[in-house]
């Protein structure tokens, strides 16, 4: 018999993240590497554990292999529990047929049975593509204090940015009276962060009603929230003021990595009171050789550095040979950058080989026309041959041989 839970979390991790292009060709967005030794999903998972949530359902759909094997039994996040823990929830077949998850709301609808097992008072809905540290327990306390049917975490953004987000229009007491998806003329600057706490009974009823509506696109923002507002339910906005970044695009993913190097960005990995956990193998310490020069960079286990690094983020087991130069580069695990190669303003995925003298990406200063410049990306397992050039904005497919 499972024990009743105060709140469980459901983590939406099924998205492809198509705007990450070659980085999500083979893995789902939440499984994309970040910050030297993490994957994006480590942030919501660690937030859950640090907030005292011990039951998390992870909804997968797109390319789940890497995500499944990464999460495993949940041990790195202390989520291997007797009662609760982490569960991978893919779409499944029933006697009535089988369906993919049609939208975020439908994904939760298809797992009503899972949530019912824990008979929770509230359900926390999270997405697997944001970098932030948040205490969901504080949000839950606010939710309970206000006797709210749904509480939505919001971020105060600038007026210019507001039209890129789902905007919550609120009364003075933070009750929400209207939700607008990407409004042209925003009335408020409180942007939804895609983090919701719902009273489970209310959400359960709303999901069933939504499923019965064939015209619905089964989405939380587009359908569930407006429906609940229409029903007269009490929806509250809870304002978050820490670091938060949607890393859904190449440039935002690169930015978020660079934010780690800036002490003023508000994103700090090493603060002892809110650790981010990850599954990591035990690699030897990193080694800095005779010719290395390193400034404003992050280096992690297993790396061997003999080249020059400026403003770069290196993942485990990266080799940078003598004379190679990295500037504002994000280089993922097991990649080798050979003698004299240059990698600037670029994201290099795992297991890549950049051969001698190859050039990947360039400094934006050399491009007076900003539209010609962008982050260069090399997909997993690709080889950039001796002396080859990968221009800014260019994307090299996984396993390409160039």
């Amino acid at each position, binding site marked *: 018999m499972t024990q009743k839970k105060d709140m469980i979390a459901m983590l939406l991790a099924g998205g492809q993240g198509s705007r990450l292009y070659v980085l999500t060709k083979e893995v789902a967005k939440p499984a994309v590497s970040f910050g030297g*030794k993490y994957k994006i999903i480590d942030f919501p998972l660690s937030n859950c554990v640090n907030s005292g949530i011990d039951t998390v359902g992870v909804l997968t759909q797109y390319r789940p292999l890497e995500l499944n094997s990464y999460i495993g039994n949940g041990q790195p996040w202390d989520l291997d529990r007797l009662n609760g823990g982490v569960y991978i929830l893919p779409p499944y077949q029933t006697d009535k047929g089988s369906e993919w998850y049609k939208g975020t709301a439908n994904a939760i609808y298809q797992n009503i049975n899972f949530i019912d097992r824990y008979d929770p008072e509230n359900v926390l809905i999270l997405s697997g593509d944001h970098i932030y540290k948040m205490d969901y327990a504080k949000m839950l306390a606010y939710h309970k204090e206000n006797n709210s049917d749904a509480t939505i975490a919001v971020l105060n953004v600038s007026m210019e940015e507001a039209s890129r987000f789902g905007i919550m229009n609120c009364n003075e007491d933070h009750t929400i009276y209207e939700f607008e998806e990407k409004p042209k003329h925003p009335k408020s600057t409180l942007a939804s962060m895609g983090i919701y706490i719902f009273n489970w009974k209310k959400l359960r009823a709303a999901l069933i009603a939504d499923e019965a509506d064939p015209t619905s696109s089964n989405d939380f923002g587009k359908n569930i929230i407006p429906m609940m507002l229409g029903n007269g339910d009490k929806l509250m906005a809870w304002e978050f003021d820490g670091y938060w970044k949607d890393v859904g695009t190449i440039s935002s993913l690169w930015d978020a990595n660079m934010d780690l190097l800036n002490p003023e960005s508000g994103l700090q990995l090493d603060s002892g009171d809110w650790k981010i956990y*990850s599954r990591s*193998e*035990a690699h030897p*310490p990193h*080694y800095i050789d*005779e010719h290395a020069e*390193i400034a*404003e960079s992050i*280096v992690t286990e297993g790396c061997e550095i003999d080249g020059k690094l400026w403003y770069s983020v290196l993942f485990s087991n990266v080799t940078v040979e003598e004379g190679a130069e990295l500037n504002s580069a994000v280089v993922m695990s097991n990649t080798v950058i050979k003698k004299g190669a240059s990698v600037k303003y670029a994201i290099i995925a795992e297991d890549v080989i950049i051969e001698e003298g190859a050039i990947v990406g360039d400094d934006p200063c050399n491009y007076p026309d900003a539209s010609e410049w962008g982050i260069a990306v090399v997909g997993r397992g690709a080889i950039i041959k001796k002396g080859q050039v990968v221009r800014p904005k260019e994307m090299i497919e996984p396993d390409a041989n160039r």
Partner: protein
Amino acid sequence: MISKTMCVLFSDSFVAVNNELAAERTLATVPFASRYRLIDFVLSSLVKSGVNNIGILTKEHYGSLVDHLGAGKDWDLDRRNGGLKILTPFAKADSAATRSRSKIDALLSCRAYLEDCNEEYVILSDTNIVMNIDFAEMVRYHISKDADITVAYQKRSDAVYNGLVLDEDRDGRIVDAYYAAGQMSDCQNQGLKVYVFNKELLMSLLERAYTYGWTDFERDFITRNINKLRVCGYEHTGYCAVINTVGDLYKASMEMLTPAIRKEVFESQTPILTRVKNSAPTLYGFESKAKNSLIADGCVIDGTIENCVIFRGVRIEKGAVLKNCVIGQNSVIHSDAKLDCVITDKDVEIQADHVLSGYPTYPYVISKGQVV
């Protein structure tokens, strides 16, 4: 054959003399190479070789050992069958103090554990050895030689050595085994305190030991029986450092900076497993300079380091210059401090502008938690 092999490890030297390294922890848990403890090397080699039933004999203040090993998860030793077992001293209030326990006493105290296991062979090994050895091959050698006991050794000429010197005949059988006191210059076969025993034989030797009051493992188990039993030598030709003193620790730490040695120890067939701690990656500041150094995760480096081994969570502030140093976990070196040939334990703090210097053969050692 390896499936029929179990292992008992000694977490300490089990000699009466206090060891300078093991004042606050077991020899097995002396920190080494930025993120490891000494026991990780032998333990990882055992796991890779397929030995899954491992008991660890403890003597005193083994809290750090229990803390480090936990249930053995990080070594894949949290098993329903076999796995890792910490064998704690079993002493009644009026019995002799645990301090005087010898290896033989320790083994006698775990006789019931040994009897309960069905394995045919037992590996007995110290844990203060930095090496990457293939135990499966050693057990195969033991069986192929039809040996009763196999002793691992290395040809070395260490100036100070406190183990057995082994004389071998052409067939690989040990014909003499003796303690060689004093300084040695010649290359000799020095035993590594790593053995393979037929388990039945070990049990009967333990009964004799109890009967006759034997106390010295090397003298009484090996030398005393050299003519009655078939004792064979197994040469380990790879890198090996036995850590008994601060000098040994410093020398081996500096050897880890040599690419060939590091590759052999860390990148050969056996990955060295250790407790995973989830530190953030290391951050290098604008004015940092690093050269020929090993650095763990979780550090913030703003100063200069050269020929150093830096553990987790160390902070080196602007203008600090460290050469030939080993800096323990969570230590802080404040701005403009100058350190040369210094070893610090965990949680040490060196105040700004301080200058400390040791000598390569006699490093300056700062113990746990000190503020200089």
